[in-house]
């Protein structure tokens, strides 16, 4: 008497089909990349563009290889600051979001300040963290990264924690479940998609925060210092090479978060095909 199972979303089976689909998705991006690099190289050579704006890709790659130890140590240094800031910022903002979700009244009063804090051009705050922690100390840059990360993660986590369907809450009430249980079993899992999308944004911001924090004064090892120094000395291939390293590291952190999301949230229907 019961119906045959009707799956709402068919899941493709078979590796070959999956791989084929993936390639199809990525082909345009690859094509653009290859074309862009080729165009860049061609234009620079053809028009003999001032190397200071845009050195040829080949020149940048050469520099990446030549100066790899310098760039690597700079990358590690700055990446450490980014990770530290990312971790601190995320932990603080998630804790704050949990508190604000529990005591709703606070949220209304605090949000304007969270918005204000986000509106402070972080670069204005960098000299202050330098004063607090010492410009050669990694902590001053971690603080910048943490501040940059704090707001987006807070806003999204809070939205996720509070966007539970009313009938879901009624269901929990029918089980006489307390607030803490509701938080643990319903609000937090349903907030995970929001949290992860915020973490993805934060991962990029953390790296940028670290580099920006290094603008004023920093250790000579730092990537930000290397960029500025190289630019000032007119070594633009090196400057661009360092920029590439910074960018790649930011993307790597993003990819790590995306991977973590895929692993923890395999259940989420949107976990297929998303930025």
């Amino acid at each position, binding site marked *: *008497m*019961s*119906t045959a*199972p*009707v*799956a*709402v*979303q068919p*899941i493709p089976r078979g590796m070959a089909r999956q791989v084929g689909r993936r390639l199809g998705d990525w082909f345009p991006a690859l094509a653009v990349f290859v074309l862009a690099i080729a165009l860049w190289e061609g234009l620079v050579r053809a028009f003999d563009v001032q190397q200071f704006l845009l050195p040829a890709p080949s020149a940048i790659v050469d520099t990446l290889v030549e100066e790899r130890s310098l760039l690597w140590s700079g990358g590690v240094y700055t990446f450490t600051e980014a990770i530290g800031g990312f971790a601190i910022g995320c932990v603080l903002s998630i804790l704050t979001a949990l508190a604000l979700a529990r005591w*709703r009244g606070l949220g209304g009063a605090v949000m304007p300040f969270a918005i204000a804090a986000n509106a402070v051009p972080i670069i204005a705050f960098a000299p202050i963290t330098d004063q607090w922690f010492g410009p050669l100390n990694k902590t001053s840059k971690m603080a910048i990264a943490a501040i940059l990360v704090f707001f987006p993660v807070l806003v999204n986590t809070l939205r996720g924690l509070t966007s*539970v*369907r*009313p*009938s*879901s*809450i*009624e*269901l929990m*009430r*029918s*089980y*006489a*479940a307390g607030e803490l*249980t509701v938080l643990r*079993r*319903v609000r937090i*899992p*349903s907030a*995970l998609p929001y949290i992860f999308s915020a973490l993805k944004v934060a991962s990029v911001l953390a790296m940028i925060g670290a580099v920006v924090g290094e603008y004023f004064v920093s250790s000579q090892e730092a990537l930000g210092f290397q960029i500025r120094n190289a630019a000032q000395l007119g070594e633009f291939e090196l400057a661009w090479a360092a920029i590439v390293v910074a960018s790649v590291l930011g993307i790597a952190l993003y990819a790590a978060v995306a991977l973590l999301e895929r692993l923890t*949230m395999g*259940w*989420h*229907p949107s976990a297929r095909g998303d930025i």
Partner: protein
Amino acid sequence: MSAERAVVSLRGVSKVFEKGGVVALEEIELAIQPGELVSLIGPSGCGKSTLLRVIGDLVQPSAGEARVNGKTAHQARLDRDYGIVFQDAVLYDWRNVGKNISLPLELLGWDRGRRAARVRELLELVELTGFESHHPWQLSGGMQQRVSIARALSFEPPLLLMDEPFGALDEMTRERLNMELLRIWETSGTTIVFVTHSIAEAVFLSTRVAVMSARPGRIAGVVDVDLPQPRTAETREQPRFFELVTAVRDRLRAGEDSAASAEEPSEENLYVAEERL
């Protein structure tokens, strides 16, 4: 109709929502005996969903008394004396079917072995054996509702509250699930309060149909459904079935005619707004 043994006993229950000052329920008197299946039917705004939630202590009445299983509705909720099924299955995407069903059991502190055994029993009951590891989005609407029913019955409550559980489904699935619900009802012996919009469904399922009128929400009448048990597909074709449907419809019309003609906000929005979630 002994009131002491009644599973649900409503005396003078009224509910006024502050927002809009709407009188959702006025002087509701109703007693439901163990083993009954009572439907609440009425037009939009008649308070049937609100009444269901008063029984479940999800909404507090402004006046009157609601007793469930011999206790106050509040105590009954704390003692988990009822299971509830909503129109939307409210399944959690991050849990598979088995884990969704066992959620209340986890909250009750059952150990893993006992939970697993009960989940298997329930899957058999709702005819979803083999779907334990599936996720909600892989199931059709009808299947999701069956999971929702299994979950509601998981801790064998004496009372089952259902708020238009089949409202979002197509007619054929609905009829099929009606039969399934009757089968589950017979097997488990649970008392059921069933809110619906469909006259045919109400008559087909129930032992009694409480007809409500709107503005203010009142019980306009109760129709005894004396169709033989167990009900089958053929029951829908009996002359007596049509007589009862007509009786219910007439009661509904009578209730409507006496109601005010002004449009009022839907009750669902009111009680959601009222409870700070």
